């Protein structure tokens, strides 16, 4: 049921040629997808500087389809021994299709024992969510996951 409705919506969006515009019609007119992406990339630069993130190591668990964008569960984790010499310093979460790209930054210490946290977030529309992890050795790892949103969670 959910799947078929999401699929038909995808078709509609494709038909209109721009997902962001289609959702804008539902009350979330927040610029084009490309502008959103640029905003997210700008934020990423502010957070990690000139480093280039590598694929892998970091895991982002979110539902594929969120019926309600007001509260979407997420768990982010990094494979790390979390010793004083080798640990994950921070995981940033970025939502490329939200009015503000920043979601949260979770800083760990070796006392965390495990580089993993969970929270719940708002998603304005169907989009990619990024998890970016900075390690104590300076390396940066990144993953993206797409979440399809039935009802957006940022507007009034």
């Amino acid at each position, binding site marked *: 049921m959910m799947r078929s409705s999401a699929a038909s919506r995808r078709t509609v969006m494709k038909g209109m040629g721009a997902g962001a515009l289609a959702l804008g019609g539902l009350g979330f007119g927040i610029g084009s997808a490309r502008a959103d992406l640029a905003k997210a990339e700008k934020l990423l630069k502010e957070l990690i500087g000139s480093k280039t993130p590598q694929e892998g190591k970091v895991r982002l668990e979110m539902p594929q389809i969120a019926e309600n964008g007001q509260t979407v569960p997420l768990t982010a984790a990094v494979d790390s021994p979390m010793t004083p010499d080798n640990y994950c310093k921070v995981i940033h979460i970025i939502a490329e299709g939200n009015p503000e790209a920043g979601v949260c930054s*979770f800083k760990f210490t070796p006392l965390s024992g495990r580089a993993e*946290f969970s*929270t719940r977030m708002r998603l304005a529309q169907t989009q990619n969510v990024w998890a970016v992890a900075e390690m104590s050795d300076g390396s940066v790892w990144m993953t993206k996951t797409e979440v399809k949103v039935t009802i957006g969670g940022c*507007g009034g």
Partner: protein
Amino acid sequence: MTDVKPRIKVPKTAKKGEIVEIKTLVSHVMETGQRKDAQGNPIPRRIINRFTCTYNGKPVCDMVLHPAISANPYISFFVKVEESGTLQMSWFDDDGSVYKAESKIEVTG
């Protein structure tokens, strides 16, 4: 606001070196600043913008929250427990309030 109440789930006991999960929930509106009231005036942003946790005074984690975090923020994370002590958590509100909660963990065996 008086209705902001942190709720936490912390194990009472742990083995030395055990990594335990902590779950937290705060009742808070997390007003994004994106919404408008019935008259069309923007509703000012008011969120919890930071969460910290220490164990026996040593930092465990420190989280920056943006308006994209849902109302009644739920946060769960882990802490490695080497000795008995007190876990202290603080939530920082845009309006300057700080909400606190703490719980003791006893290390057995």
